[in-house]
């Protein structure tokens, strides 16, 4: 790592996250002025105001420039979407974990300008105002969550068009779309004209931002005497005058072009899950090769540029949430996830020299942002996966590993062309999408264990006392396990209906009130259709509902089948009584359920068969149902940290899990339920039909010892390759022993730098809430004699 990168990295790590009111205030003022324009033009006006007025900041010695806020980690807010209250700001400022400093000036701006203007007008208020009672009750009971009440529909990734066209090229595409619109008799031509005009304004706005950076660099350079510093600043200026307006001509210009576009996307709105450059290694390769061949770039220089680029991601924490409690901590990470390897659009091995460079950067930088993954195809060579394995076994959770062949197959099943699928990959945690061409929006998590609880109580929620679901009957009267599964299926379908009804309304609200013309400029086929990204302009439009707790559900249903309907050593009425008492005075029954039940994660077909049944029920309830954007609802199975929240609202379950404790995460077995080692876990998980999902998340924890030496690398590679040959979608690893984690809990001050894999991302262990820390410690640690 060069001295420059060391310094920039240290600065980034030391920067204190703060709330910046700059964007909020500019958005407020611009909306006051342009409030009566049609929404796309109003949003374009606001975006231009932001690009023209936000503080331009160049940090010492950096090579890639551009911050979203007025300083590194000064974090923008999005009051048009959800507006922080003064109480929210006070909590953010003072809570012990994931805090954001809030200055008096910011509080004043909120008190006097921002809050009074947005009260009653935010998207969040509109959403809650439009939801029906059934939706609100289910939401309050914790049956599902709603992504879009705090963050915009995002989850899209850039493809290669920026590097070929530049923003001016895209603007030319807008102009020709406008021209053909004029000649057509399109009944929607007025709305389309507004949208296209808005896209053009936004393209110019980001070019303006880049020009302001060029001017800033020149201004600083004029006051600097050191010739080296001066020339560095003048080079920044030269680069920013060229990109992103024009197609980049060099490796450095390519990175800078992307970064301005990234800033534009995350300033326009706060889309889940943050935008990323997609196939970075493939996009950069031609620039890398050209630079090496003509002598203008060295491998070391390319690496330094990439590392400077990495720092920029780390400088942008996820926007803080509103309506938080003092205990809630969430995360600073914003889920930009860099893909490496995989396939090229024509189906060849996509690993190249830049891929290996990126792996070295991941290893050296050790930052939680950006996140990183490798896309591993059977066509990729072993040196690639071995190089990744050597980074993985260092233990901090990056990169995660995806089955590139399965990812392509998933997209083709959903109806994408194979070329679009191969240029796709994964983003956020584990979500599959066609880069540059798809809006694949996560709508919320779905609490499957809670549905078991409701089924056991005939649709009534014991925690809130409300009849939330259909009356499916007292299970004590059920004569067979099939009858129980039918009731479970009915409950699942009911709540999926409630969720989808709400999501359809929310999609329309975004299409109507919060178009994103800049993002639309970047995603095919918004320009050709003259339609906004949020309204269905993308070529592919997917809405995901993420199932959580498959392990807990499987074990719970397995316990019911085994004990109540199989061995008949427990009556349903007794089980219900024991669960209602949260096992108090029934420890023996709890242990019986825990220890004497076939459980998921042990390659036991009895349990794994139930997992498959649950999968089918969930899949059939959701897959293929139309959304409002011309696409369909799909499933994936990932938790982020929602398994903690869902556990906290779910009473005792028949797998022996006590009330309010976490449910299982991703498609991993219940913490501690897998007792036959990692190969058995992988065999169990592979019995799921991953190809019919848009992503599944599997965590594995190993002690460092087992992955030592060349044999350790061999073992890791063989586990990954075998799992993928069996059809698995994704696997990620924590390589740290429980003793270290317990020690870090005890003495957090000595372990501030300990990074662990949480769900589809890594985070600082000491920043996690206690229950999440405990949950990670409880995950089964694979060892060997």
């Amino acid at each position: 790592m060069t001295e420059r990168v060391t310094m920039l990295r240290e600065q980034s790590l030391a920067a204190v996250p703060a709330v910046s009111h700059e964007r909020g205030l500019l958005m407020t003022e611009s909306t006051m002025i342009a409030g009566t324009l049609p929404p796309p033009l109003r949003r374009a006006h606001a975006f231009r105001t932001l690009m023209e007025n936000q503080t331009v900041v160049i940090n010492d010695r950096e090579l890639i420039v551009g911050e979203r806020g007025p300083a590194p980690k000064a974090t923008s807010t999005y009051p048009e979407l959800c507006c922080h209250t003064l109480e929210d700001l006070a909590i953010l400022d003072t809570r012990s974990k994931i805090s954001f400093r809030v200055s008096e000036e910011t509080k004043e701006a909120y008190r006097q300008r921002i809050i009074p203007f947005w009260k009653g007008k935010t998207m969040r208020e509109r959403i809650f105002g439009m939801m029906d009672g059934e939706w609100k009750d289910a939401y309050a009971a914790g049956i599902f969550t709603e992504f879009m009440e705090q963050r915009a529909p995002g989850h899209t990734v850039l493809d290669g068009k920026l590097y070929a066209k530049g923003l001016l090229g895209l603007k030319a595409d807008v102009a020709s779309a406008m021209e053909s619109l004029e000649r057509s008799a399109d009944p929607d031509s007025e709305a389309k004209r507004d949208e296209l005009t808005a896209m053009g304004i936004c393209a110019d706005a980001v070019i303006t931002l880049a020009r302001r950076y060029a001017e800033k660099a020149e201004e600083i350079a004029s006051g600097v005497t050191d010739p080296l510093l001066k020339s560095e600043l003048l080079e920044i200026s030269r680069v920013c005058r060229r990109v992103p307006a024009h197609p980049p001509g060099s490796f450095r210009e390519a990175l800078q072009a992307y970064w301005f576009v990234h800033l534009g996307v995350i300033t326009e709105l706060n889309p889940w899950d943050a935008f990323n450059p997609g196939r970075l290694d493939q996009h950069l390769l031609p620039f890398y090769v050209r630079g090496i061949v003509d002598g203008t770039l060295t491998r070391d220089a390319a690496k330094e540029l990439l590392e400077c680029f990495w720092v920029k991601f780390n400088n942008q924490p996820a926007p803080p949430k509103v309506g938080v409690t003092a205990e809630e901590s969430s995360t600073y990470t914003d889920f930009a996830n860099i893909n490496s390897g995989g396939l090229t659009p024509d189906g060849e091995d996509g690993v190249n020299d830049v891929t290996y460079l990126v792996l070295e950067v991941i290893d050296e930088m050790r930052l939680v942002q950006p996140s990183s993954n490798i896309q591993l195809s059977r066509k990729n060579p072993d040196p690639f996966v071995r190089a990744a394995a050597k980074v993985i076994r260092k233990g901090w959770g990056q990169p995660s590993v995806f089955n590139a062949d399965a990812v392509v197959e998933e997209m083709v099943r959903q109806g994408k062309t194979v070329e679009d699928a191969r240029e796709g990959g994964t983003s956020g945690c584990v979500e599959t999408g066609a880069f540059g061409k798809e809006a694949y929006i996560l709508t919320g998590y779905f609490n499957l264990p809670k549905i078991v609880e409701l089924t056991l109580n005939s649709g009534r929620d014991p925690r809130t006392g409300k009849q939330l679901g259909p009356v499916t009957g007292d299970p004590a009267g059920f004569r067979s396990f099939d009858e129980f599964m039918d009731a479970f299926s009915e409950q699942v379908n009911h709540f999926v209906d409630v969720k989808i009804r709400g999501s359809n309304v929310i999609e329309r609200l975004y299409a109507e009130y919060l178009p994103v013309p800049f993002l639309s400029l970047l995603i095919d086929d918004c320009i050709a259709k003259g339609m906004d990204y949020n309204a269905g302009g993308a070529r592919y439009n997917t809405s995901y509902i993420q199932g959580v707790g498959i392990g807990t559900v499987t074990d719970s249903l397995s316990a019911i089948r085994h004990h109540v309907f199989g061995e008949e050593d427990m009556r349903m009425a007794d089980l219900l009584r024991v669960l209602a008492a949260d096992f108090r005075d029934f420890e023996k029954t709890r242990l019986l359920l825990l220890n004497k039940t076939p459980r998921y994660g042990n390659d036991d077909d009895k349990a794994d068969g139930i997992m498959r049944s649950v999968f089918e029920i969930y899949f059939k309830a959701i897959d293929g149902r139309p959304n409002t954007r011309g696409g369909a609802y799909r499933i994936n199975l990932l938790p982020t940290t929602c398994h903690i929240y869902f556990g906290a609202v779910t009473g005792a379950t028949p797998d022996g899990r006590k009330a309010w404790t976490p449910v299982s995460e991703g498609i991993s077995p219940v913490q501690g339920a897998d007792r036959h080692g990692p190969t058995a876990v992988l065999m169990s998980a592979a019995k799921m039909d991953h190809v019919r999902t848009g992503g599944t998340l599997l965590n594995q924890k190993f002690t460092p010892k087992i992955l030592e030496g060349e044999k350790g690398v061999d073992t890791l590679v063989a586990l990954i390759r075998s799992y993928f040959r069996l059809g698995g979608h994704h696997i990620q690893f924590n390589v740290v022993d429980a003793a270290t984690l317990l020690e870090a809990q005890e003495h957090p001050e000595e372990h501030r730098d300990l990074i662990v894999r949480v769900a589809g991302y890594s985070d600082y262990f000491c920043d996690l809430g206690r229950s999440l820390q405990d949950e990670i410690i409880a995950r089964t640690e694979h060892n060997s004699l």
Partner: protein
Amino acid sequence: MDNGTTDAPGGAPAGTVFNIMRFSVHDGPGIRTTVFLKGCPLQCAWCHNPEALSGAPELLLRPDRCIACGDCMDICPQHAVVEKDGKYETRPELCSRCGTCADACAADAREVIGRAMTVEDVMREVERDAPFYRESGGGVSFSGGEPLLQHRFLVQLLRSCVLRGFHTVVDTAGYASPDVLLRVAELTDLFLYDLKSVDQEIHRRFTGVPGALIRGNLVRLASWGKKVVIRMPIVPGVNDSQANIEEAGRFIASMGNVVMVQLLPYHTIGVDKYDRLGIPYSLSGVKTPSGGYLNSIAQELLRFHPVVSIGG
């Protein structure tokens, strides 16, 4: 020598297995499944699998898990479980190791170690990880106890593995008749062979049997051209004298079939099993050897063989 093999109803060969461990990565190349066969003719003082010594099933108790519900006492068909001060003990002279109490124990505080399994039973488990063997160059390992003790069963298992294309490893102390060894060797790709001590007196004193047969069998494997990994337990104060190590080195150097030498440092992980099984432990007080010390032994052995590693 008892072959430890019984025949299950229907004539299928059956043996006593005390564990089948998947994802075993230290008992041969790649990712493997290790089948542990019960019973051993040796009585090594440092044995970390004391539950494997006897050829018969045994009852293992985990008192820390017991919630004193008393179900074991109520259910035992032999009335072998008695309550004493709130604790439930099993009288060994009455217990038939039938496992009824273990099946009923909600807390998993009781386990019967050693199950009669047929070749088909074992192969069903072993086949589960076949995708991992293929990908990693792994396979199936047989360990113990002493797997050669149940040689009829072992030969059947090895034959089944070979027919399925699984790489085979036998982890043995080598205390078996030469014709048994030959039948096993024909079906074995790699032997992990214990060399506990080349000193006759030490060998007899700490393992209970003479070492000559074991050394002779090792020479036989060499003459048959079978690949062997030599495993030397290093037990401080027992078999780690300079003379002992040097003589072992010379012996190893005299054979052409040794692919590597592994030093297995003495450890105390198995000691608490002695308590749970009610067997006295004779080496208490012996310390785990340090890394530096093991390195010096490895250096010494490198004079005799080019590949020496510490740990299995």
